[in-house]
């Protein structure tokens, strides 16, 4: 018995050792022409791709090729497929660069959290997308590379919308713009009101698209329409918007207010104009009761045909195309006392500060933001190309439904408020502090007076002292 045990122990030990030896060879799955990651590669390029999808798009790395990993945040499988396809095409175009595309998480909160954790651990991709609000945080922490010195002669900042480029070229040390280059915008987007035309017609309300075309699509008309639809009764609601900063922000902007003071160094949500915007939004919920409760996802009831007007960005288009079984379209955001000021949302491809291959990473960023690449992504319907180009806009207008794509372009041209980072403070802290106040006001847990008195109390702590 003892002899058997000893023999078994030896056999087990030998098996483990030989398996470990086999592992030292890197397995046999690699192609004959492949080589391990370059020895000088930083940790940023060392880690294996974390997802199956990434593995599926991973290309073999030739001996003289530089391996780059890149990541963006797609909202659905269709976007993952398009980005994977684009990755393969760029891989074929770029000499000596081998690409691995990693789709990031689709949860709003977790994408950046995961990314920062990977940056901290040294396993983040070489190139990744981040929302515009996060540019300052990543840049001031030294997590992303200033690409200005790498920019080619044929590169021009003015090829892209100036709003995003203001922040992407902002130098936090001098406070001047145009001095740095933190990345290039992947796309832009604006808000629009998604309409359930069936409900609006059933309610006997005027067609918002006609009103908008005549310049009569005001807050009053918007409220009238919402009330009319809401009066249909049952589960039907006149209006819906989700609980995040941009939605209440639309009413604040359209009332002539804003989140920050002029130099973005303090909270301006307690200004009379900003409060007027929130007062109108609050009345939708608390006085007229025409909205889906703030804090609940309004998209499912809208797609189920229970909401007349749903405020959202271009990214909601693919889901609406796929799920809405009613007559739908979009219309410009309504005109408030300060105009019809939508947001200009954007996000950018940036380069990991620890990448071992900055020049190749810059080439990849350029390739990901060409007119051709952006056009392919825009065709999906999720966003608008970030390049200032009539051709791009004309192409975008053909990507229907919705029939009234012009609403997005109108909002883009109508002096939108730029989604922007806080160079003099912490955006996540500001967002957390103001978000709870928005919710409290819109749910009727806070009076307008108390809101005005306290909304900037905590929010101002987010700014550098």
């Amino acid at each position: 018995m003892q002899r058997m045990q000893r023999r078994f122990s030896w056999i087990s030990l030998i098996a483990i050792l030989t398996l470990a030896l086999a592992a030292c060879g890197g397995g046999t799955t690699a192609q004959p022409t492949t080589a391990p990651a370059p020895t000088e590669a930083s940790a940023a390029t060392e880690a294996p791709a974390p997802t199956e999808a990434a593995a599926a798009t991973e290309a073999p790395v030739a001996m003289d090729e530089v391996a780059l990993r890149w990541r963006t945040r797609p909202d659905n499988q269709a976007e993952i497929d398009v980005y994977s396809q684009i990755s393969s095409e760029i891989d074929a175009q770029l000499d000596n660069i081998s690409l691995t595309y990693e789709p990031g998480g689709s949860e709003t909160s977790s994408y950046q959290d995961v990314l920062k954790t990977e940056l901290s651990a040294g396993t983040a991709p070489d190139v990744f997308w981040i929302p515009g609000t996060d540019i300052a945080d990543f840049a001031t922490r030294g997590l992303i590379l200033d690409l200005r010195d790498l920019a080619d002669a044929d590169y021009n900042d003015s090829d892209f919308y100036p709003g995003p480029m203001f922040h992407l070229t902002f130098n936090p040390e001098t406070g001047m713009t145009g001095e740095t280059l933190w990345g290039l915008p992947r796309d832009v987007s604006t808000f629009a009101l998604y309409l359930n035309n069936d409900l609006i017609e059933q309610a006997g309300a005027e067609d918002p698209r006609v009103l908008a075309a005549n310049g009569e699509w005001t807050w009053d008309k918007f409220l009238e329409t919402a009330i009319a639809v809401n009066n249909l009764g049952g589960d039907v609601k006149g209006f819906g918007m989700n609980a995040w900063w941009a939605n209440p922000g639309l009413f604040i902007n359209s009332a002539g207010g804003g989140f920050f003071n002029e130099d973005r160094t303090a909270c301006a949500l307690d200004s009379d104009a900003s409060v007027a915007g929130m007062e109108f939004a609050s009345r939708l919920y608390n006085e007229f009761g025409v909205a889906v409760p703030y804090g609940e996802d309004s998209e499912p009831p809208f797609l189920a045909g229970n909401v007349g007007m749903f405020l959202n960005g271009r990214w909601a288009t693919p889901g609406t195309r796929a799920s809405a079984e009613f007559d739908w379209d979009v219309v410009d955001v309504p005109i408030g006392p300060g105009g019809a000021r939508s947001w200009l949302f954007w996000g950018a491809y940036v380069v990991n500060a620890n990448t071992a291959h900055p020049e190749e990473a810059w080439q990849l960023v350029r390739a990901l933001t060409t007119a051709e690449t952006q056009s392919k992504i825009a065709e999906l319907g999720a966003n608008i190309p970030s390049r200032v180009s009539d051709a791009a806009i004309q192409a975008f207008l053909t990507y229907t439904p919705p029939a009234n794509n012009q609403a997005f372009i109108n909002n883009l041209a109508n002096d939108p408020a730029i989604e922007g980072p806080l160079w003099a403070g912490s955006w996540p802290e500001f967002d957390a502090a103001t978000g709870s106040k928005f919710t409290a006001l819109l749910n009727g847990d806070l009076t307008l007076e108390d809101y005005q008195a306290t909304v900037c109390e905590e929010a101002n702590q987010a700014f550098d002292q």
Partner: protein
Amino acid sequence: MREGSQGEPGSPCDPIKGKPMATTTARKPATTAGAALVIRLGAAWHALLAFGLVAAAWALLQARWVQRDGLRLYVAGLILLGAVASVIALVLLLRRDGRGRAISLGLNYIFGVGSLLSLLGVLGLYISLDEVAASFNRWVWLLLGVLVGFLIGSVGDRFTHAPTTQAAFHRAGGWVMGASAIILLLAMGLIQGVIGLLSGLGNPLALVLLSATVLFGLFFWLMLRPQIAVAFGAGERDAEAVSGFLFIAPNLLGFMLFFAGPLLFSLYLSFTNSDSFTAEFVGLRNYIEIFSLQFAQVPPGQRSGAVLSSGYIELVRLGDFVVGAKDRIFWIALWNTIVYCFWVTMLSVVPALLVATILNSKIPGMQFFRAIYFIPSIAGVVGVAVIWKWLYNSNIGFLNYGINQVLGLFNRLPFVEIAPVQIAWLASQQTALASIIIMAAWQLLGFNTILFLAGLQGIPGEIYEAATIDGASNLQRFRYMTLPLLAPTTFFVVTTTLITTLQVFSEPFVMTPPPGGGPNNSTMTAVLYLYQRGFNRFEQGYAAAVAWVVFLFIFAVTLVQFRLQRRYGDM
């Protein structure tokens, strides 16, 4: 009888086998010339090791390429600790003190394993494991040869009457099994592995690590030799201790590396302003900010901002008095956690006891209901939370739909007209926490029921029979027999439920809009808050401080519970 117990107590023995040594005694350990040389070499090795570790710590502190200051200090501190231990081992070895040998064994073991693991990392073993696993899946069918070999050997067992034939079958089976295993390993890339290993050893770092592994292993082995044990007067208990430590060493190392190490690191982080990229020591600043409270009187009609110092925000107002806090959200989160903990414990323990009492009865179909009640416990929290989130949806959720259907039935009655409700379960500050409490209690109920059921089934039936004969009613038996006899189970159920609920994270994270904790912080819990500070805002030093406060709070609650159990357990 144990092997080692054959010798006299305290007699020196083989440290591995525990057999007594014939020629030595514990009182007068004899040292051979060879043993003396090994001890001197061991002392020299520890001198060299201490020097090397100090140099490594210094180099680490000087290294500009290590960006994470906190981690650098922490690792440098651990290395210096090793250097101090090495110096102590050196001194004690020269004094022939048995503790020196123990420290030497420990150091050589830890650094030997560390060197080996690092070597494997440098050789790329860890990043290749996935490929080996994939390769194994591809070639696993070759293991059928092992099965065939085993069957051939088994056939030989039939030839008990012909030993030569039997041996031939066994040998043939062994060869087939061995050949299959070798073919499998070759297919998986054994040869490439050997080539990879040899080429990897060309890396100077790999050579250094290999040399270190060999040296640590060598000195560990030398210190383990019986002659050395004799020289230090090691007795049977020492031998057993060494063997015991060797057995638990892998687990102990894992505990130190993956639990105690990070725990201590988080304690260190709590005294820094770490954002995970840089860290500066800030002393107690994080803890001071957490606990900073201010009490002030507010004249009627005036806002609290006018009386509170800068940086303080109103936490709660009690009449004319206001309590301000520097970190208001922490206190809200702590209060929410306590409320959540209290109600979930109440709603999942008391009903669980009643349900368990019913399920303990001998009514047909009870097995089925036991399974039904247990199902929510085995479902994942996130999945359950997502489903409940949709149930709670005010517009298209089943809960409001069900309520309105019931109201509709009432509306059929004459003179009754109740308007349909649209309760914003998760969107309203008034109902959000309660909604999450209901969901969590529902999920915990089944598990607690099973625990109570096990406790109930452990109570002897004879006691109930005796009580029945004595005329005790059902209620009296439950009050005076079941409850006291279930006290240990109740204590366990309450303690585990309290600890679980005080750490609540997933439910509010999933059920309320990102980043969780809404509406208006009404579902913000302590762990969710520290997650947000640590990962949304990347204030990991502050988050670590919050984590330690939460830990101490949970520890204190559990301690009080233990004390109460001891005091009232026998009642």
